[in-house]
């Protein structure tokens, strides 16, 4: 954001848009296909200069929402306000928004240069300016020397860059990206994610990306909207989404998690006692008020579950509060940076733990069928409605 502010000198529009007026306001937008509600009265604000990700499983309506922003679908209900103007009914070729297509959709009969210049020519830009802008875009995505090639003569990564340059060339008010990195291999995808972020910061432009890859969403986005069945389940920063999921569905969708169903028993200071079937009584630090006897679930991320042979080495004050579960290691998966364990608790339930391999020679390795104590602090637990 800091860099985006510096860029405001060059792009006066960004300055004019103050934080309280969003660049994009999606207001109770709905779209049905037959009897399927692809997007179900969804509202969302996106700020200028933001990198926003729409994340969700396939069929959740994220692509339909993006296509409505681009103009390829018309909402049945609701408004889409871009910079205060309702664009819900505006035709795609008349919108100040560009889309980078999933499979790039490069024109196979045109060279890289002509692909990038396509939108500029339609806008009636003078020839000399087109040349300058194309050169600028080619430099921006580091495609120098490939201007005369046709899309068939490019690698996957190069095609992706051409598609990006083409959609950026018109300097849209907002760039939409539909699974832009899905076709790249893992290494290239990761490096491209950082290039995308860098580019977005440098241009100070608003990016809205659609992805089903949560790691990608968390890497690139300032905020993420998690969608399911046409609705937004949660809109939050990546950290909030992971550490404070709003619902059980989000908790289970984003990353790995252990979930224990139980009943709220009592409250002591800011700590809740929850009795669970599989893990006994769990103590959770939770400032919110919950109704006693309510059915809830306790969620703990695997990396917050520590293992030890005998139990935590902790001072006397915390000793009472720490949740301890005993069990037997059943699976060990060494993943390089971390090792993932499955522990069969005495209750029969399975608990997952992930421990970072912080030292090359690790003395704390646990092997299958070894008996261990798994523990986690009240702060590491999240209480959610069942």
């Amino acid at each position, binding site marked *: 954001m800091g860099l985006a502010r510096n860029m405001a000198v060059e792009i006066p529009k960004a300055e004019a848009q103050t934080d309280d007026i969003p660049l994009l306001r999606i207001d109770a937008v709905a779209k049905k296909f037959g009897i399927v509600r692809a997007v179900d009265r969804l509202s969302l604000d996106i700020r200028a200069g933001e990198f926003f990700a729409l994340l969700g499983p396939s069929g959740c309506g994220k692509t339909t929402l993006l296509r409505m922003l681009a103009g390829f679908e018309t909402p049945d209900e609701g408004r889409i306000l871009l910079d205060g103007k309702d664009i819900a009914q505006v035709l*795609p070729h008349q919108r100040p928004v560009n889309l980078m297509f999933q499979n790039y959709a490069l024109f196979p009969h045109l060279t890289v240069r002509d692909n990038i210049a*396509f939108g500029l020519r*339609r806008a009636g830009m003078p020839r000399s300016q087109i040349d300058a802008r194309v050169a600028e875009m080619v430099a921006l995505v580091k495609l120098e020397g490939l201007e005369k090639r046709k899309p068939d003569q490019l690698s996957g990564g190069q095609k992706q860059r051409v598609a990006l340059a083409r*959609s950026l060339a*018109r300097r849209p008010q907002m760039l939409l990206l539909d699974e832009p990195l899905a076709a790249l291999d893992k290494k290239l995808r990761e490096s491209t994610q950082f290039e995308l972020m860098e580019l977005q910061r440098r241009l100070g432009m608003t990016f809205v990306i659609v992805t089903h890859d949560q790691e990608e969403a968390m890497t690139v986005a300032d905020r993420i909207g998690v969608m399911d069945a046409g609705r937004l389940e949660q809109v939050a920063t990546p950290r909030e989404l992971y550490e404070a999921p709003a619902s059980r569905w989000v908790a289970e969708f984003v990353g790995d998690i252990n979930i224990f169903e139980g009943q709220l028993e009592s409250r002591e200071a800011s700590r809740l006692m929850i009795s669970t079937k599989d893990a006994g009584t769990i103590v959770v630090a939770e400032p919110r008020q919950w109704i006693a006897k309510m059915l809830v679930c306790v969620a703990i991320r695997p990396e917050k579950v520590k293992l030890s042979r005998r139990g935590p080495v902790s001072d006397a004050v915390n000793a009472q509060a720490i949740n301890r579960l005993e069990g037997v290691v059943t699976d060990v998966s060494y993943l390089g940076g971390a090792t993932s364990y499955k522990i069969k608790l005495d209750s029969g339930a399975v608990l997952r733990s992930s421990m970072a391999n912080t030292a090359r020679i690790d003395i704390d390795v646990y092997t299958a069928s070894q008996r261990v104590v798994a523990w986690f602090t009240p702060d590491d637990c999240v209480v959610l409605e069942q």
Partner: protein
Amino acid sequence: MSGRRIFTRPARLAAIAPSLWMLLFFLMPFGFVLKISLSQTAIAQPPYLPVFDLAQGAAAIKAASAALSLDNFRLLVSDDLYILSYLRSLVVAAVSTSILLAIGYPIAYGMARLRRRWQAVAMMLVIVPFWTSFLIRIYAWINILQHDGLLNKILLALHLVTAPVVWLSTDSAMYLGIVYSYLPFMILPLYAVLGKMDMALLEAASDLGASPRQTFWLVTFPLSLPGVGAGVLLCFIPIVGEFVIPDLLAGSGSLMIGQALWLEFFTNKDWPVASAVAVVLLLLLLVPLILYDRLQRRQLGDAQ
């Protein structure tokens, strides 16, 4: 290692097969026709001279070869009947192909935009006329177009005309017959290309500010050019040599080259001149083929 050789032998044979086919069914017959075109007419069996007889030895073949001449080709150039026939064939083929493209493109485009299920139905409708003999369909047109035919009856009943109009034995009737007969050959290659078109490309064009009309001329049409080329060739080449349709539907005022060839062959029994006409026709038709081939080669070269 030996396994490898076993695999390559059929592959090599397969590569030779098309060449063998061409040699047997195209180059050899063409050689015969070319030889006859260099001979003279004779009242004999076969009706031309000289005749090669391998049994009589090398000297006789040498003598026979000396008798070959280009006289028939000189005749083709000196008599404007042939030149006019060639020209008329080219003009008829060019005009018909243009009409076919103008009618076939929108039909193929419309078919490609239909839902999958309806595409199959439309495809059937295009192909269904093939189930009836071509000749019967042309005779049907004669029936429709004749003096007291269906068309005139309808026009009279609707009071659009006061007296029957002469349709049959006109160029209009011939063009109608040609366009009607060749339309599937134009539609199918166009449909094959347009049906495969990636819709995302059209969306991309519109996303980048192209109006629907611009999208068509800047993306759809250029990408359908291979289909246009195939359809045009598939129609143009046979129409140049067309004999039945002009013979049945057009007037007797001017001939197409196919008719001239038929006259030489069957009415005048002049095989050598007929063969010369055929040889020139073939050479004429090679020109668009070579042009098309070069165009494709250039496109392939671009892709590499």
